[in-house]
């Protein structure tokens, strides 16, 4: 699908999907569609963001999101600066505010930030003039992951409206879940949150989500199973008794999938705890689009970088 040329994109930041309209989300997806082809070229580079400077401010560890943003920016010919807290002045006690202002003083156009604290990208957007992209803020949102998940669903299923999507696992601590919920419900999908009650806040219903505690009852009726990583580092409060029990009750394995629709899609934002939330045969099986998600992440992030940068001419990308 090609982007609607009449649609005027006005956002200078991407802080979350909650505040985007269905039309804006669709516009990002359509723009990502038009960028997909670049990654298949021999020379995977266009001059769209030439002369622009992008900084990767990853204050929380990340592999795929950070690399994906770096590659996406480089494919658009932006200069990319990496920043990591352990080698930065943050480790010397400098505040994020001062660090951000100093970075901006070097002429940054786009700041991509990942942080453990919800709302940090919003704070950053108040401090600096550059565009801010949220690459994950605590348990709040991970908009580009939500977008690439939805993009992948749309690519595989041809639609979002009417899809039934199970989001399985640690909803409470998951920014991926929240961005998926905002995006999917705005585009007309039905979302079912599945997991133990300790990991599903009841108030999630207010976002238009159903709650289920029995994965086996949900599997036959859904088109997509989006499996969240069990955040073992959160387990100090004992949200479930053992990893083994979690795997028994909610782990997606081939036995469970026998009751699923034939064309069910298995998704996972990674990194995977193999044998816990998903068995290896399912992760690598025919229903899995996990690596496809990673590939699509590039196009989606290129689209987001392009849109927030305020680049007026879509043809430059061509």
């Amino acid at each position, binding site marked *: 699908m090609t982007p609607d040329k009449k649609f005027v994109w006005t956002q200078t930041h991407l802080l979350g999907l*909650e505040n985007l309209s269905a039309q804006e989300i669709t516009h990002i997806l359509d723009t990502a569609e038009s960028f997909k082809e670049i990654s298949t070229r021999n020379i995977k580079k266009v001059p769209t963001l030439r002369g622009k400077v992008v900084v990767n401010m990853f204050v929380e560890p990340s592999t795929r999101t950070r690399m994906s943003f770096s590659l996406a920016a480089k494919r658009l010919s932006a200069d990319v600066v990496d920043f990591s807290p352990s080698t930065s002045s943050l480790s010397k006690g400098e*505040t*994020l*505010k001062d660090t951000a202002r100093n970075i901006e003083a070097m002429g940054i156009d786009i700041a991509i930030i990942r*942080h*453990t*604290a*919800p*709302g*940090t990208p*919003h*704070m950053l957007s*108040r401090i600096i003039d550059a565009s801010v992209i949220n690459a994950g*803020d*605590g*348990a*709040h*949102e991970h908009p580009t992951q939500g977008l690439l998940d939805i993009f992948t669903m749309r690519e595989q299923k041809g639609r979002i409206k009417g899809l039934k999507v199970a989001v399985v696992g640690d909803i*409470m*601590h998951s*920014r991926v879940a*929240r961005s998926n919920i905002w995006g999917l419900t705005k585009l007309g999908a039905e979302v079912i949150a599945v997991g133990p009650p300790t990991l599903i*806040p009841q*108030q*999630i219903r*207010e*976002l238009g989500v159903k709650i289920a505690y029995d994965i086996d009852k949900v599997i036959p009726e859904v088109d997509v199973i989006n499996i969240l990583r069990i955040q073992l580092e959160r387990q100090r*409060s004992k949200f479930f008794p053992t990893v083994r029990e979690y795997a028994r009750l909610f782990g997606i394995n081939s036995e469970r999938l026998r009751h699923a629709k034939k064309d069910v899609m298995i998704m996972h934002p990674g990194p995977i705890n193999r044998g816990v939330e998903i068995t290896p045969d399912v992760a690598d099986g025919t229903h899995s689009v996990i690596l496809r998600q990673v590939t699509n992440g590039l196009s989606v992030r290129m689209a987001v970088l392009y849109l927030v940068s305020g680049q007026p001419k879509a043809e430059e990308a061509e």
Partner: protein
Amino acid sequence: MTTILIKNGRVIDPANKIDKVTNVFIENGKIKSVGPKTPKANKTIDAKGLIVTPGLIDMHVHLREPGKEDEETIASGTAAAINGGFTSVACMPNTDPAIDNEASAEFVYLQAKRAGKANVFPIGAVTKGRKGEEISEMGQLFRGGAVGFSDDGAPIKSAEVVRRSLEYSKMFDKPIIDHCEDMDLIRDGTMSEGSVSVTLGLVGMPPVSEEIMVYRDIALAKLTDGKLHIAHISTKRAVELVRQAKKGGIKVTAEVTPHHLTLTDDYVKTSDFNTNYKVNPPLRTKSDVEALKAGLKDGTIDAIASDHAPHAEEEKDVEYNVAPFGIIGMETLLPVVLTELVHKKVITINQLVASLTVNPARILGIPKGTLSVGADADVTLIDLNKEWVIDPAKFKSKSRNCPFAGWKVKGKAVSVIIAGHVI
């Protein structure tokens, strides 16, 4: 002989059930008379159109001295108090070091005397070093001038310690003031648990964490017949617990802050994670706010206090998770409550004045909050209809962590008199 005549003001003195346009005469720092007489005075204040009340009392503030003088000092805090219309404040002992012995309580009085502004009454720590383990030398603290006991900033975890402190403090007839929250349920929460916290991905502090502790403390107050005061009450159920306890004759009182009476957790979201909405107890829901208003109206809640909690800008201007809890409030309490509660007819001006004068004075057992003949001549003059916009840059407090910046308000304290001196 120094004399002041305040004439033609609407005198509201709930302690003496006075609400009429009349005159107040002050002689040598004491109230000499309240009535139509117009004795000759060295100074005459025309209070026509103004409300004349006993000097207002803010029974719950943090002045940060000793230890965090960059955020506030007793001098700057009392200047802020006067700017807000308060002639007396009671300050919490969560300083560094804590106010947990006679000398430290005396230090507060000494600094307040040096500052020469509002009256300052220290509240002593319930436990040594506020560690929650052993009760402090309450007798010595009392001798040093402590008017109540609290580990505020943190709850008293041990029910046994609460029990003993309620029993022991009966000797001095001073209240145990508890900050009610069950820390096991709070974990590293940063806002009230509910649909907003779930949406924002912030760790929630469940309202039940407050209610459990309010219930526990009330049960212990009943057991001991001790005087219990619930600080900054914030939930609907907690208000109901206090209401029922009062009906049962238990010696419990409660205070509420202006921000819990006017703001909800939605502000965290609509402000895009502005840390000036990060307070403890956290901002709750609309139904809690309504219950707090009802509790104030029917007398379940006795006092309004600011919980003035100054923080340096660099401490608040950080990621939401790591910002400290607390906002300043002495300079906004009166205008915010007048605008949102009195002018909107939730409570009467008489109820408001009672909650800031006779009631806190009674709870703390201090000889303030009245215009009785012979009382200290502490007086506040309020212009009920003055419209203005809150601008924290103009505050006397050292800190600026105010969530009411930009609010259009109606009502302001225009003058205070302390011990017969016009400030």
